[in-house]
Protein backbone atom coordinates (compact mmCIF):
# COMPACT_ATOMS: atom_id res chain seq x y z
CA UNK A 1 0.00 0.00 0.00
CA UNK A 2 1.47 3.31 -1.09
CA UNK A 3 2.78 4.10 -4.57
CA UNK A 4 5.38 6.75 -3.84
CA UNK A 5 9.15 6.33 -4.27
CA UNK A 6 9.38 3.52 -1.72
CA UNK A 7 6.21 1.62 -2.71
CA UNK A 8 7.06 1.61 -6.40
CA UNK A 9 10.69 0.65 -5.71
CA UNK A 10 9.54 -2.33 -3.63
CA UNK A 11 7.27 -3.42 -6.51
CA UNK A 12 10.10 -3.01 -9.03
CA UNK A 13 12.64 -4.96 -6.99
CA UNK A 14 10.29 -7.64 -5.57
CA UNK A 15 10.80 -10.17 -8.36
CA UNK A 16 14.59 -9.91 -8.01
CA UNK A 17 14.12 -11.16 -4.45
CA UNK A 18 11.74 -13.92 -5.58
CA UNK A 19 8.52 -12.31 -4.45
CA UNK A 20 5.22 -11.86 -6.28
CA UNK A 21 3.37 -8.55 -6.10
CA UNK A 22 -0.32 -9.40 -5.79
CA UNK A 23 -1.49 -5.82 -5.61
CA UNK A 24 -0.56 -2.14 -5.46
CA UNK A 25 -2.71 0.60 -3.99
CA UNK A 26 -2.45 4.33 -3.51
CA UNK A 27 -4.76 6.76 -1.77
CA UNK A 28 -7.51 6.53 -4.41
CA UNK A 29 -7.04 3.38 -6.48
CA UNK A 30 -5.68 -0.16 -6.54
CA UNK A 31 -4.63 -2.97 -8.87
CA UNK A 32 -5.03 -6.52 -7.56
CA UNK A 33 -4.30 -9.94 -9.02
CA UNK A 34 -3.79 -12.98 -6.77
CA UNK A 35 -1.56 -14.50 -9.46
CA UNK A 36 0.66 -11.43 -9.60
CA UNK A 37 0.11 -8.06 -11.24
CA UNK A 38 2.03 -6.70 -14.19
CA UNK A 39 4.20 -4.32 -12.18
CA UNK A 40 5.59 -2.41 -15.14
CA UNK A 41 2.17 -1.71 -16.62
CA UNK A 42 0.80 -0.57 -13.27
CA UNK A 43 3.73 1.75 -12.61
CA UNK A 44 3.44 3.16 -16.12
CA UNK A 45 -0.21 3.95 -15.44
CA UNK A 46 0.76 5.59 -12.15
CA UNK A 47 3.21 7.81 -14.05
CA UNK A 48 0.85 8.76 -16.88
CA UNK A 49 -2.64 8.76 -15.28
CA UNK A 50 -1.61 9.06 -11.61
CA UNK A 51 -3.74 6.02 -10.83
CA UNK A 52 -2.65 2.41 -10.30
CA UNK A 53 -5.83 0.61 -11.32
CA UNK A 54 -9.61 0.39 -11.53
CA UNK A 55 -10.19 -0.95 -8.03
CA UNK A 56 -10.59 0.87 -4.72
CA UNK A 57 -7.80 0.85 -2.08
CA UNK A 58 -10.06 -1.26 0.17
CA UNK A 59 -10.00 -4.05 -2.43
CA UNK A 60 -6.25 -4.28 -2.00
CA UNK A 61 -6.57 -4.68 1.77
CA UNK A 62 -9.19 -7.42 1.24
CA UNK A 63 -7.20 -9.13 -1.51
CA UNK A 64 -4.85 -12.10 -1.46
CA UNK A 65 -1.40 -11.52 0.07
CA UNK A 66 1.02 -12.91 2.65
CA UNK A 67 2.56 -9.61 3.69
CA UNK A 68 1.26 -6.06 3.43
CA UNK A 69 3.87 -3.42 2.71
CA UNK A 70 2.74 -0.16 4.31
CA UNK A 71 4.54 2.67 2.49
CA UNK A 72 2.02 5.51 2.59
CA UNK A 73 3.19 8.93 3.81
CA UNK A 74 3.95 9.26 7.52
CA UNK A 75 1.26 11.10 9.44
CA UNK A 76 1.35 12.35 13.01
CA UNK A 77 -1.23 11.89 15.76
CA UNK A 78 -3.54 8.98 14.92
CA UNK A 79 -1.11 7.84 12.16
CA UNK A 80 -4.00 7.27 9.75
CA UNK A 81 -4.57 5.82 7.25
CA UNK A 82 -1.40 3.76 7.78
CA UNK A 83 -2.53 2.59 11.21
CA UNK A 84 -5.77 1.10 9.85
CA UNK A 85 -3.91 -0.60 7.02
CA UNK A 86 -1.57 -2.25 9.52
CA UNK A 87 -4.32 -3.42 11.85
CA UNK A 88 -6.51 -4.67 9.00
CA UNK A 89 -3.65 -6.90 7.82
CA UNK A 90 -2.79 -8.14 11.31
CA UNK A 91 -6.45 -8.85 12.06
CA UNK A 92 -6.46 -11.08 8.97
CA UNK A 93 -3.38 -12.84 10.40
CA UNK A 94 -1.17 -11.42 7.67
CA UNK A 95 2.34 -10.04 8.10
CA UNK A 96 3.07 -6.32 7.84
CA UNK A 97 6.28 -4.58 6.78
CA UNK A 98 6.35 -0.85 7.41
CA UNK A 99 8.20 1.94 5.67
CA UNK A 100 5.71 4.45 7.14
CA UNK A 101 6.94 5.71 10.52
CA UNK A 102 3.55 6.86 11.83
CA UNK A 103 2.11 3.64 13.29
CA UNK A 104 5.29 2.62 15.16
CA UNK A 105 6.19 6.16 16.24
CA UNK A 106 2.79 7.49 17.24
CA UNK A 107 0.82 4.32 18.17
CA UNK A 108 3.44 1.71 18.97
CA UNK A 109 1.63 0.20 21.94
CA UNK A 110 -1.63 -0.05 19.94
CA UNK A 111 -0.10 -1.83 16.97
CA UNK A 112 1.89 -4.15 19.22
CA UNK A 113 -1.34 -5.06 21.06
CA UNK A 114 -3.04 -5.94 17.75
CA UNK A 115 0.06 -7.87 16.67
CA UNK A 116 -0.02 -9.99 19.84
CA UNK A 117 -3.55 -11.19 18.95
CA UNK A 118 -2.45 -11.94 15.40
CA UNK A 119 -0.68 -14.83 13.72
CA UNK A 120 1.03 -12.18 11.65
CA UNK A 121 4.28 -10.40 12.44
CA UNK A 122 5.08 -6.70 12.04
CA UNK A 123 8.57 -5.60 10.96
CA UNK A 124 9.72 -2.02 10.40
CA UNK A 125 13.45 -1.81 9.79
CA UNK A 126 12.83 0.53 6.83
CA UNK A 127 11.35 3.22 9.08
CA UNK A 128 14.73 4.29 10.52
CA UNK A 129 17.88 5.01 8.54
CA UNK A 130 16.71 3.83 5.10
CA UNK A 131 18.95 0.99 3.98
CA UNK A 132 20.91 0.91 7.25
CA UNK A 133 19.73 -1.90 9.53
CA UNK A 134 19.06 0.21 12.62
CA UNK A 135 15.94 -1.26 14.22
CA UNK A 136 17.06 -4.87 13.71
CA UNK A 137 20.54 -4.09 15.07
CA UNK A 138 19.15 -2.48 18.21
CA UNK A 139 16.60 -5.24 18.57
CA UNK A 140 19.41 -7.80 18.45
CA UNK A 141 20.81 -6.38 21.69
CA UNK A 142 19.43 -6.91 25.12
CA UNK A 143 18.01 -3.49 25.97
CA UNK A 144 19.96 -3.44 29.24
CA UNK A 145 23.20 -3.67 27.33
CA UNK A 146 22.54 -0.56 25.22
CA UNK A 147 23.14 2.69 27.08
CA UNK A 148 22.54 5.15 24.24
CA UNK A 149 21.64 5.35 20.58
CA UNK A 150 22.44 8.57 18.73
CA UNK A 151 23.04 9.68 15.23
CA UNK A 152 22.28 11.62 12.11
CA UNK A 153 18.90 10.41 10.95
CA UNK A 154 17.83 13.00 8.42
CA UNK A 155 19.73 13.28 5.16
CA UNK A 156 18.18 16.58 4.11
CA UNK A 157 19.16 18.41 7.29
CA UNK A 158 22.61 16.85 7.13
CA UNK A 159 23.08 17.94 3.53
CA UNK A 160 22.12 21.51 4.42
CA UNK A 161 24.42 21.72 7.46
CA UNK A 162 27.40 20.14 5.74
CA UNK A 163 27.04 22.39 2.70
CA UNK A 164 26.65 25.47 4.91
CA UNK A 165 29.83 24.48 6.74
CA UNK A 166 32.03 23.70 3.74
CA UNK A 167 31.06 26.71 1.66
CA UNK A 168 30.05 29.25 4.34
CA UNK A 169 26.64 29.65 2.76
CA UNK A 170 23.50 30.66 4.59
CA UNK A 171 20.57 28.42 5.33
CA UNK A 172 18.08 29.85 2.80
CA UNK A 173 20.60 29.58 -0.03
CA UNK A 174 21.49 25.95 0.65
CA UNK A 175 17.85 24.97 1.21
CA UNK A 176 16.91 26.34 -2.23
CA UNK A 177 19.83 24.45 -3.75
CA UNK A 178 18.79 21.24 -1.96
CA UNK A 179 15.29 21.64 -3.38
CA UNK A 180 16.70 22.08 -6.90
CA UNK A 181 18.75 18.91 -6.45
CA UNK A 182 15.73 16.98 -5.18
CA UNK A 183 17.49 16.45 -1.82
CA UNK A 184 14.86 18.53 -0.05
CA UNK A 185 11.14 18.34 -0.72
CA UNK A 186 9.06 21.34 -1.76
CA UNK A 187 7.83 21.42 1.83
CA UNK A 188 10.92 20.50 3.86
CA UNK A 189 9.33 21.37 7.22
CA UNK A 190 9.55 17.91 8.83
CA UNK A 191 13.16 17.48 7.72
CA UNK A 192 14.50 20.81 8.93
CA UNK A 193 12.40 21.27 12.08
CA UNK A 194 13.61 17.95 13.46
CA UNK A 195 10.25 16.14 13.30
CA UNK A 196 11.45 13.40 10.95
CA UNK A 197 14.58 12.70 13.00
CA UNK A 198 12.46 12.79 16.17
CA UNK A 199 10.00 10.21 14.81
CA UNK A 200 12.92 7.89 14.06
CA UNK A 201 14.25 8.41 17.58
CA UNK A 202 10.81 7.65 18.99
CA UNK A 203 10.82 4.35 17.08
CA UNK A 204 14.30 3.59 18.45
CA UNK A 205 13.10 4.38 21.99
CA UNK A 206 10.04 2.15 21.52
CA UNK A 207 12.23 -0.75 20.43
CA UNK A 208 14.84 -0.11 23.11
CA UNK A 209 12.50 0.47 26.05
CA UNK A 210 9.56 -1.72 25.02
CA UNK A 211 7.12 0.96 23.90
CA UNK A 212 5.37 3.88 25.53
CA UNK A 213 6.85 6.69 23.43
CA UNK A 214 5.32 9.16 20.97
CA UNK A 215 6.70 12.37 19.52
CA UNK A 216 5.21 14.20 22.51
CA UNK A 217 7.99 12.65 24.60
CA UNK A 218 10.77 14.08 22.45
CA UNK A 219 12.50 17.43 22.98
CA UNK A 220 12.97 18.70 19.45
CA UNK A 221 14.86 21.65 17.96
CA UNK A 222 15.35 22.24 14.25
CA UNK A 223 18.13 23.70 12.15
CA UNK A 224 16.17 26.55 10.51
CA UNK A 225 17.74 29.18 12.75
CA UNK A 226 21.33 27.99 12.61
CA UNK A 227 23.29 30.80 10.90
CA UNK A 228 26.45 30.26 8.88
CA UNK A 229 28.32 32.19 11.59
CA UNK A 230 27.58 29.41 14.11
CA UNK A 231 29.13 26.85 11.78
CA UNK A 232 32.24 28.96 11.27
CA UNK A 233 32.66 29.51 15.01
CA UNK A 234 32.37 25.75 15.46
CA UNK A 235 34.91 25.15 12.68
CA UNK A 236 37.48 27.48 14.31
CA UNK A 237 37.29 25.13 17.24
CA UNK A 238 37.68 21.92 15.22
CA UNK A 239 34.00 21.17 15.38
CA UNK A 240 30.97 21.29 13.20
CA UNK A 241 27.20 21.23 13.72
CA UNK A 242 24.93 18.32 12.90
CA UNK A 243 21.27 17.61 13.61
CA UNK A 244 21.64 14.79 16.10
CA UNK A 245 18.99 12.53 17.57
CA UNK A 246 19.93 11.13 20.96
CA UNK A 247 18.10 8.35 22.81
CA UNK A 248 19.49 7.65 26.28
CA UNK A 249 18.28 7.35 29.87
CA UNK A 250 14.71 6.88 28.60
CA UNK A 251 14.56 10.31 27.03
CA UNK A 252 14.72 11.62 23.48
CA UNK A 253 16.59 14.78 22.45
CA UNK A 254 16.83 16.05 18.89
CA UNK A 255 18.62 19.24 17.92
CA UNK A 256 21.69 20.81 16.37
CA UNK A 257 24.79 19.72 18.30
CA UNK A 258 28.50 20.43 18.21
CA UNK A 259 30.43 17.39 17.04
CA UNK A 260 34.13 16.97 16.26
CA UNK A 261 34.71 18.01 12.65
CA UNK A 262 36.58 14.84 11.82
CA UNK A 263 34.55 12.63 14.14
CA UNK A 264 32.39 9.68 13.19
CA UNK A 265 29.13 11.56 13.56
CA UNK A 266 30.12 14.32 11.15
CA UNK A 267 28.98 12.45 8.05
CA UNK A 268 28.59 14.63 4.99
CA UNK A 269 25.88 15.06 2.38
CA UNK A 270 22.74 12.98 2.73
CA UNK A 271 24.48 10.17 4.61
CA UNK A 272 23.00 8.85 7.83
CA UNK A 273 24.85 7.35 10.77
CA UNK A 274 23.73 5.61 13.91
CA UNK A 275 25.95 5.09 16.92
CA UNK A 276 24.98 2.43 19.42
CA UNK A 277 26.66 2.70 22.80
CA UNK A 278 26.85 -0.78 24.32
CA UNK A 279 27.74 -1.86 27.83
CA UNK A 280 30.21 -4.58 26.92
CA UNK A 281 31.18 -4.00 23.33
CA UNK A 282 31.89 -0.28 23.18
CA UNK A 283 30.55 1.84 20.41
CA UNK A 284 29.07 0.49 17.19
CA UNK A 285 28.73 2.74 14.16
CA UNK A 286 26.43 1.95 11.27
CA UNK A 287 26.30 4.39 8.39
CA UNK A 288 24.99 4.54 4.86
CA UNK A 289 22.24 5.93 2.72
CA UNK A 290 19.38 6.96 4.92
CA UNK A 291 16.76 7.70 2.30
CA UNK A 292 15.76 7.06 -1.28
CA UNK A 293 13.35 4.70 -2.99
CA UNK A 294 15.67 1.79 -3.71
CA UNK A 295 17.56 2.17 -0.43
CA UNK A 296 14.42 2.05 1.69
CA UNK A 297 12.91 -0.67 -0.52
CA UNK A 298 16.02 -2.76 0.18
CA UNK A 299 15.27 -2.57 3.89
CA UNK A 300 11.63 -3.51 3.23
CA UNK A 301 12.66 -6.51 1.15
CA UNK A 302 15.14 -7.57 3.84
CA UNK A 303 12.28 -7.60 6.33
CA UNK A 304 10.11 -9.59 3.90
CA UNK A 305 12.93 -12.12 3.63
CA UNK A 306 12.84 -12.57 7.42
CA UNK A 307 9.15 -13.45 7.33
CA UNK A 308 9.58 -16.48 5.10
Amino acid at each position, binding site marked *: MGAGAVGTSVAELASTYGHTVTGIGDSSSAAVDPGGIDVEAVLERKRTDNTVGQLAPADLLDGAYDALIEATPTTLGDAEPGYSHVTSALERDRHVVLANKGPVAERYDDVRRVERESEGTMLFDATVGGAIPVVSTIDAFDSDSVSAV*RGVLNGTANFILSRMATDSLDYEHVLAEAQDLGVAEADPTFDVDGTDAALKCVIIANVLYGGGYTIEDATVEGIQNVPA*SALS*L*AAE*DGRTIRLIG*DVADERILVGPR*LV*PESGTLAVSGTQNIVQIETQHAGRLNVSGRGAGGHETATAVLRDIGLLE
Partner: protein
Amino acid sequence: MSDRDPVRAHTVRLELDDEPGELLNALGPIADNGGNLLSIFHERGNRTPRGQIPVAVDVEATAERFERIVTALRETGVNVVQAGTEQYGDELTVVLVGQLLQSNLSETLSRIESESDCSIKNVTLSVGESAADPSSARLRLAVHTGASDAALEAVRGVAYDQELQVISPLAGGETA
Protein backbone atom coordinates in the same frame (compact mmCIF):
# COMPACT_ATOMS: atom_id res chain seq x y z
CA MET B 1 55.21 17.14 38.72
CA SER B 2 53.79 14.03 40.33
CA ASP B 3 50.50 12.42 39.35
CA ARG B 4 49.29 12.78 42.86
CA ASP B 5 49.25 16.54 42.65
CA PRO B 6 47.98 17.41 39.19
CA VAL B 7 47.61 20.93 37.87
CA ARG B 8 44.02 22.08 38.13
CA ALA B 9 42.08 25.23 37.50
CA HIS B 10 41.03 27.07 40.65
CA THR B 11 38.98 30.19 41.15
CA VAL B 12 39.86 32.83 43.73
CA ARG B 13 37.26 35.45 44.50
CA LEU B 14 38.78 38.67 45.73
CA GLU B 15 37.41 42.00 46.79
CA LEU B 16 39.67 44.93 45.95
CA ASP B 17 39.62 48.59 46.82
CA ASP B 18 39.06 50.90 43.87
CA GLU B 19 42.63 52.22 44.02
CA PRO B 20 45.34 52.30 41.37
CA GLY B 21 47.65 49.29 41.58
CA GLU B 22 45.27 47.14 43.64
CA LEU B 23 44.75 44.60 40.88
CA LEU B 24 48.47 44.35 40.11
CA ASN B 25 49.14 43.99 43.80
CA ALA B 26 46.79 41.02 43.90
CA LEU B 27 48.22 39.32 40.85
CA GLY B 28 51.83 39.45 42.03
CA PRO B 29 51.55 36.62 44.58
CA ILE B 30 49.94 34.38 41.94
CA ALA B 31 52.87 34.63 39.53
CA ASP B 32 55.44 34.59 42.34
CA ASN B 33 54.14 31.25 43.56
CA GLY B 34 53.98 29.43 40.24
CA GLY B 35 50.32 29.93 39.37
CA ASN B 36 49.33 30.15 35.74
CA LEU B 37 46.79 32.93 35.32
CA LEU B 38 43.87 31.79 33.15
CA SER B 39 41.43 34.67 33.37
CA ILE B 40 40.50 37.71 35.39
CA PHE B 41 36.92 38.83 35.71
CA HIS B 42 37.06 42.33 37.09
CA GLU B 43 33.48 43.38 37.74
CA ARG B 44 34.16 47.08 37.65
CA GLY B 45 30.48 47.99 37.45
CA ASN B 46 29.68 46.06 40.61
CA ARG B 47 30.34 47.05 44.20
CA THR B 48 30.24 44.94 47.30
CA PRO B 49 28.36 46.30 50.33
CA ARG B 50 31.75 47.46 51.58
CA GLY B 51 32.32 49.44 48.40
CA GLN B 52 34.94 47.11 46.98
CA ILE B 53 35.15 45.66 43.48
CA PRO B 54 34.59 41.90 43.15
CA VAL B 55 37.23 40.14 41.09
CA ALA B 56 37.24 36.49 40.10
CA VAL B 57 40.60 35.09 39.11
CA ASP B 58 41.08 31.69 37.52
CA VAL B 59 44.46 30.17 38.21
CA GLU B 60 45.99 26.91 37.12
CA ALA B 61 48.24 25.34 39.72
CA THR B 62 48.84 22.21 41.73
CA ALA B 63 46.90 22.05 44.98
CA GLU B 64 50.05 22.71 46.98
CA ARG B 65 51.02 25.77 44.97
CA PHE B 66 47.48 27.05 45.06
CA GLU B 67 47.49 26.93 48.83
CA ARG B 68 50.70 28.95 48.85
CA ILE B 69 49.15 31.49 46.48
CA VAL B 70 46.15 32.00 48.77
CA THR B 71 48.36 32.35 51.82
CA ALA B 72 50.56 34.87 50.00
CA LEU B 73 47.52 36.86 48.86
CA ARG B 74 46.23 37.07 52.42
CA GLU B 75 49.67 38.09 53.67
CA THR B 76 49.72 40.91 51.13
CA GLY B 77 46.47 42.14 52.63
CA VAL B 78 44.20 41.19 49.75
CA ASN B 79 40.65 40.35 50.74
CA VAL B 80 40.20 36.72 49.63
CA VAL B 81 36.54 35.87 49.98
CA GLN B 82 36.61 32.42 48.48
CA ALA B 83 39.35 30.12 47.36
CA GLY B 84 39.94 26.55 46.44
CA THR B 85 36.42 25.34 46.96
CA GLU B 86 35.78 25.49 43.25
CA GLN B 87 37.77 23.23 41.08
CA TYR B 88 37.12 23.51 37.39
CA GLY B 89 38.31 20.29 35.87
CA ASP B 90 36.14 20.09 32.77
CA GLU B 91 35.71 22.31 29.80
CA LEU B 92 32.49 22.83 27.92
CA THR B 93 32.08 24.65 24.62
CA VAL B 94 28.68 25.89 23.50
CA VAL B 95 27.48 28.13 20.68
CA LEU B 96 24.64 30.55 21.38
CA VAL B 97 22.56 31.70 18.43
CA GLY B 98 20.02 34.50 18.21
CA GLN B 99 19.65 38.22 18.60
CA LEU B 100 22.70 38.46 20.80
CA LEU B 101 23.20 42.16 20.27
CA GLN B 102 19.62 43.11 20.96
CA SER B 103 19.58 40.96 24.06
CA ASN B 104 21.90 42.01 26.81
CA LEU B 105 24.98 39.90 26.12
CA SER B 106 26.89 40.86 29.24
CA GLU B 107 23.86 40.12 31.38
CA THR B 108 23.48 36.77 29.62
CA LEU B 109 27.11 35.94 30.30
CA SER B 110 27.07 36.88 33.94
CA ARG B 111 23.84 34.95 34.47
CA ILE B 112 25.42 31.91 32.82
CA GLU B 113 28.42 32.20 35.15
CA SER B 114 26.36 32.47 38.29
CA GLU B 115 23.53 30.07 37.41
CA SER B 116 25.61 27.32 35.87
CA ASP B 117 28.35 27.78 38.46
CA CYS B 118 31.03 27.90 35.81
CA SER B 119 33.75 30.25 34.73
CA ILE B 120 33.60 31.67 31.22
CA LYS B 121 37.11 31.37 29.83
CA ASN B 122 36.56 32.77 26.40
CA VAL B 123 33.83 34.34 24.28
CA THR B 124 34.01 34.69 20.49
CA LEU B 125 31.24 36.63 18.81
CA SER B 126 30.29 36.44 15.15
CA VAL B 127 27.75 38.99 14.04
CA GLY B 128 25.38 38.55 11.11
CA GLU B 129 25.62 40.74 8.02
CA SER B 130 22.66 42.91 8.87
CA ALA B 131 21.34 43.83 12.28
CA ALA B 132 18.30 41.61 11.76
CA ASP B 133 20.45 38.52 11.11
CA PRO B 134 21.04 36.26 14.07
CA SER B 135 24.52 36.36 15.59
CA SER B 136 26.49 33.53 17.10
CA ALA B 137 28.75 33.40 20.12
CA ARG B 138 31.06 30.59 21.07
CA LEU B 139 31.57 30.27 24.80
CA ARG B 140 34.27 28.21 26.40
CA LEU B 141 33.29 27.39 29.94
CA ALA B 142 35.33 25.88 32.74
CA VAL B 143 33.02 23.69 34.78
CA HIS B 144 33.40 21.52 37.84
CA THR B 145 34.61 18.01 37.13
CA GLY B 146 31.64 15.83 36.25
CA ALA B 147 29.21 18.75 36.31
CA SER B 148 29.03 19.42 32.57
CA ASP B 149 25.46 18.17 32.23
CA ALA B 150 24.21 20.31 35.09
CA ALA B 151 26.07 23.35 33.75
CA LEU B 152 24.59 22.80 30.31
CA GLU B 153 21.12 22.56 31.78
CA ALA B 154 21.64 25.93 33.47
CA VAL B 155 23.01 27.48 30.26
CA ARG B 156 19.88 26.26 28.47
CA GLY B 157 17.71 27.85 31.13
CA VAL B 158 19.38 31.24 30.76
CA ALA B 159 19.33 30.99 26.95
CA TYR B 160 15.63 30.14 27.00
CA ASP B 161 14.90 33.29 29.03
CA GLN B 162 16.91 35.39 26.56
CA GLU B 163 15.32 33.66 23.53
CA LEU B 164 18.63 32.26 22.38
CA GLN B 165 19.29 28.83 20.92
CA VAL B 166 22.02 26.71 22.47
CA ILE B 167 24.09 24.42 20.29
CA SER B 168 25.87 22.14 22.69
CA PRO B 169 28.13 19.13 22.41
CA LEU B 170 26.57 15.73 22.81
CA ALA B 171 26.35 14.41 26.35
CA GLY B 172 28.47 11.30 26.53
CA GLY B 173 29.50 11.63 22.91
CA GLU B 174 32.86 12.28 21.32
CA THR B 175 34.31 15.53 22.52
CA ALA B 176 37.32 16.37 20.45
